[in-house]
């Protein structure tokens, strides 16, 4: 137990030495919200969005961006590199299982995405008077489930990719569709209805709907929560099955 803790502490130190990851996961989502919030029309109530402002809708979007950055952009090349460089093998000659390294990194990327979410919520509240989510528990649940599916998707990339380079390429290929379904170009709630129906079957689309509902004060629809949970489980299971230690 203390050995796994030592692994976690060491990996946390290493995590702090990755300026790229710290920026794209930790700061970029809040910066993006700041930039969008500076567009005057985004701060005006829009009847077509049910009287909400665009900036209100973009708060959940940037939280999803944080998850995508952590799970799909940052984590897969790192974990694949650990395997490629023999770091996992080196660890497996000790009494500690190499899974401790993977577990530590998944935990850290998840924690960074959550930290980034808190920062983005604070920026939204302080700079643009976006109300904090009124159905807090539902919001947190949707956040955690969607994060789970983002990390699981990252693990699938890591299982499928042989090298860190391939993981990066796959990550980028998955990155843009993920950003689209998260609503970066147009929030899911403002998409045409048919598109909404398709997008909300995908983890980030469903996550976006659930977060948006909880922000407005309603308990998120169970189908949306179920979609994110099922994706997290299926992707996680697939990643575990396909994973090769070397």
């Amino acid at each position, binding site marked *: 137990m203390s050995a796994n803790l030592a692994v976690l502490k*060491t990996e946390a130190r*290493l995590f702090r030495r990755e300026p790229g990851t710290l920026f794209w996961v930790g700061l970029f989502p809040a910066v993006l919200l700041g930039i969008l919030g500076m567009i005057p029309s985004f701060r005006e109530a829009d009847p077509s969005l049910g009287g909400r402002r665009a900036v209100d809708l973009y708060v959940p979007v940037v939280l999803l961006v944080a998850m995508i950055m952590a799970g799909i952009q940052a984590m897969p090349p790192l974990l694949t590199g650990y395997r490629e460089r*023999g*770091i996992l*093998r080196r660890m497996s*000659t000790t*009494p500690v299982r190499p899974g401790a390294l993977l577990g530590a990194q998944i935990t850290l990327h998840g924690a960074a995405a959550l930290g980034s979410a808190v920062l983005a919520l604070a920026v939204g509240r302080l700079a643009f008077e976006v109300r904090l989510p009124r159905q807090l528990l539902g919001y947190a649940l949707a956040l955690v489930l969607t994060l789970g599916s983002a990390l699981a998707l990252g693990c699938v990339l890591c299982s499928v990719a042989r090298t860190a380079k391939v993981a990066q390429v796959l990550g980028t290929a998955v990155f843009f569709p993920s950003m689209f379904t998260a609503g970066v170009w147009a929030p899911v709630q403002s998409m045409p209805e048919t598109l909404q129906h398709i997008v909300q079957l995908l983890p980030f689309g469903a996550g976006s709907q659930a977060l948006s509902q909880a922000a407005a004060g309603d308990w998120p629809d169970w189908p949306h929560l179920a979609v994110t949970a099922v994706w997290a489980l299926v992707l996680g299971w697939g990643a575990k099955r396909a994973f090769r230690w070397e």
Partner: protein
Amino acid sequence: MAIIEVSGLRKVYGGRTVVDDVSFTVAEGEIFGILGPNGAGKTTTVECIEGLRVPDGGTVRVGGLDPVGDHDRVTQILGSQLQESELQPKLTVREALELYAACYPRPADWRALAGRLGLAEHLSARFGRLSGGQKQRLFIALALIGSPRVVVLDELTTALDPRARRDTWQLIEEVRAAGVTVLLVTHFMEEAQRLCDRIAVIDRGRVAALDTPAGLIGRSAQSVVVSFTPSAPLDPAELAALPGLGSVAPAGGRGGGEAEGRLEIRGTDATVDAVISLLARHRITAHRLRVGDATLDDAFLDLTELTAPTPQEA
């Protein structure tokens, strides 16, 4: 007492048998070498001992334990330095030592280990910035950090310059002096000859020979090398008739004209005696006469050539 027992080990990759019926035991306190050409199955053999691969046949025991089934307990008595493994590039030497010390229930004092391995001044250097020699010293430290009874060192000195290689040899002798058994995988003859108590020569997945370095050299047909520049040419027919002859060849002359006509004769002690009397009979002077024992190099080539032409029956 044997700390490592390998018996009838077999490992197949995609229909190709890379390790075939390999057996040997390593006694406690020994430096045991596994010597062989690249791709002979050396690393696969030690990976089975380390529990990183599951054998397709035969048994492996480390301290009486199964490296696969009893992996946790085996990792506590067996320290490993792997060929071609790295650490996290931004991990410092100190962090690496602390992390790996935390992995073991009874770790050695990492500060003392760092001092002994000349890493004390590099504690805050990141792994990615270390030189090849420093990385290897760190890997030796990590192999020893769990206070193991036996360490496996796989191609430890391959990437090192001659000076660093000699320093590492001294280290390995110190490790053994501290009571740790060493299993050394190498393709450097000089290294095996200098360090090992016993050597298993592995060639194409099989143990071609297992003996002390002196025993291996003696077992070879050509254990003595005599070279000289005769004052007059010698009759090739008479040379070919020498008893116990291995080979006669013009010696590679580095000094230009001086080495012209120089001969190198390989054979047994009887060959040397016959050469001397042949020279005496013809009143030929042997200039710059050198008689030396063949090295492990010669023995190795001899041993691996024996099995070279066709795959033989066991």
